[in-house]
């Protein structure tokens, strides 16, 4: 909103109103979950938005109490699996996207369209065959057993995003580096990679979200704490008795797993600055 100063008063008011409506709409479910996580079990059904008593029992339950084993191990799995999947996907996508952006080779379009086709393939239809295959070859309920299917989700989008970033970098920069005495690898590492950093971080965040938020693979391809990620683990929470819903604990766990994502975005959003290539060439 660069020309904010030129907006008339009425327009400004409308912008604020619209902004607040969108904020409330987007944040209401989150606020509800936060509020739920502080309620006592008896308070859950009252229909009130705010808890009558603010209690930390639910957090205590998942971090130190009965659900601790289930939650903490799944948190560890989720972080580990998502990070590894993100890392592999970013590195692979970086080389693939560079090749796609720079080189002219037969089958280039095929790779891009295949990547897109994989991305739109419904996950639920692959899960059952994958379940059988994984059990036969011993990948069922292991970290690699989840990382590999996650790569199939994250790689296509990573390749697409990164090749768009690479295409923005003028080819002359690389040629200039080569004339200046750089090998192809040096030119890539010292010129292209630093300029592609915003693209790398954008891609990393998107990949991380996809892996972090997955539920279907997580619930279908795991059976124990060895590999079960958080979204799947939430379904296994139990209440204090079998007649009690574990809603409070689930809400608390949901809040806890949202925090790393928020931190991640806040940390990296400064790196996602566009216009880093400005000044390279005279446009």
């Amino acid at each position, binding site marked *: 909103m660069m020309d904010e100063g030129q907006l008339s008063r009425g327009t400004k008011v409308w912008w604020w109103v619209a902004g607040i409506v969108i904020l409330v709409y987007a944040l209401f479910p989150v606020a509800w979950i936060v509020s739920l996580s502080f309620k006592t079990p008896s308070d859950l059904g009252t229909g009130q938005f705010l808890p009558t008593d603010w209690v930390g029992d639910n957090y205590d339950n998942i971090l130190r109490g009965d659900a601790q084993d289930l939650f903490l191990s799944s948190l560890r799995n989720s972080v580990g699996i998502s990070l590894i999947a993100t890392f592999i996907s970013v590195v692979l996508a970086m080389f693939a996207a560079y090749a796609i952006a720079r080189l002219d080779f037969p089958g280039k379009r095929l790779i891009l369209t295949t990547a897109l086709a994989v991305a739109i393939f419904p996950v639920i239809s692959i899960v059952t065959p994958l379940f059988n295959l994984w059990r036969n070859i011993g990948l069922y309920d292991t970290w690699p057993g989840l990382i590999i299917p996650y790569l199939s989700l994250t790689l296509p989008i990573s390749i697409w995003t990164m090749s768009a970033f690479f295409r923005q970098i*003028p080819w*002359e*920069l690389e*040629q*200039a*580096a*080569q*004339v*200046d*005495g*750089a*090998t192809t690898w*040096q030119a890539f590492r*010292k*010129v292209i990679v*630093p*300029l592609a950093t915003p693209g790398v971080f954008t891609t990393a965040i998107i990949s991380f979200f996809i892996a972090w938020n997955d539920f279907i693979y997580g619930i279908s391809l795991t059976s124990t704490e060895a590999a079960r990620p958080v979204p799947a683990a939430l379904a296994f929470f139990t209440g204090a008795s079998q007649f009690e819903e574990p809603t409070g604990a689930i809400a608390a766990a949901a809040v806890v797993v949202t925090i790393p994502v928020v931190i991640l975005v806040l940390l990296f959003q400064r790196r996602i600055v566009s216009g*880093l*290539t*400005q*000044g*390279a*060439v*005279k446009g």
Partner: protein
Amino acid sequence: MAAITLKDINKRYGDGFHAVKDVNLDIADGEFVILVGPSGCGKSTLLRMIVGLEDITSGELRIGDQRVNEKAPRDRNLSMVFQNYALYPHLTVYENIAFPLRLAKTPDKEVDERVRRASDLLELNEHLDRKPANLSGGQRQRVAMGRAIVREAQAFLFDEPLSNLDAKLRGQMRTEISRLQKRLGITTVYVTHDQVEAMTLGDRVVVLRRGVVQQVATPRELYENPVNLFVAGFIGSPPMNFISATVSGDSLHTPFGEWKLPASRAGDLSGHDVVLLGARPEAFEDVSVVSDAVRDHGVVFDATIDVIEWLGNEQYAYVPYDAPEDIRAQLAELERELDSEALRTQLVVALDASSRIPEGAPASLWLDLRRVHVFDPESGTNLTVEAMKDHGDQAAAATPNGGRPSAAASPGETQRETPRETPGETAPRATSEAGEGGDDTVP
């Protein structure tokens, strides 16, 4: 520093496009050579082949006494200034200039010394800590040059370095480049489509057309003795006037009357029915300001002047005339090839600033016949230069290499072709001439 030798260099792209054809060129150590031609003539491709960014299809390229065809750009030890500068936006000006030294693992102390020396030379001292994005066009240009001169390269290569600057800055940088080159004395190859840059900067100029070398000569030689219609039309602003004439005996019938050329200019015209006469604007004059001493060397004719542009130091008068259809078509084709467009056949005449010839009225003009060239309209060859060569009276001046002692004149260097050969080939190459189309051409 080293000499660069190109021998039968060819470039054929994957799609069959023959961008550079049998180029032979000897660039002496320390020489400043310009490659010039209209868009798509293969000059950038040629430069990129020298630096190693394009493969050489056939032929041999030697730098110093080494064959470098198979060497990667980094092993050729050349430095290049790109048309769009190609500065590294994530590095400061200092690090940009130091980049080639860092790659060569030069010790920090020496890097600092040499970067400072380069920045002194280019007056970049106060900008060393800034990023390229915060610099003006001229400053970026100087950073790009700093990066080129900081290491001891065998030669400098410039790819239209000034085409992104505005006219005033372009003039300043042109002088700056010339001064720098003289001071450092390093072999330089400079690509441009601007004939003013070509004329002012180069020791020798190579005129290219559709990948074929037309003429290699000093700027003066190109201007005074162009070997064919193309070179004649390309060099000079306003361009040379072409007048069609029919040969009858030893006199020429032109739209402006019967002219009789001196023997030194005409040569043997038997066997030609129609010729094109070429005369630069300054070969004409208002008859009233011509001194009697020289009047006899030219002809006086009457013409109606359409428009006059008075520039202070001189004035240009425009004289429209009718030319035969086929000649007009040929001239239009030539104009198109030179990236301009001829609306009508007209003479552009440079008159003395004191001349008071009025617009729109018939006037008497004088043409110095000693400065007229005769071209064969079929092949485009300059028959006057041919005749001179045959007589041997200006043999040194008319050799293809412009009389540089270091350069051996080989027959391949003055190839000519007929102007209407394979018109499809003029299509500009996106790869080799990228970004050229939008630039303003000759001012």
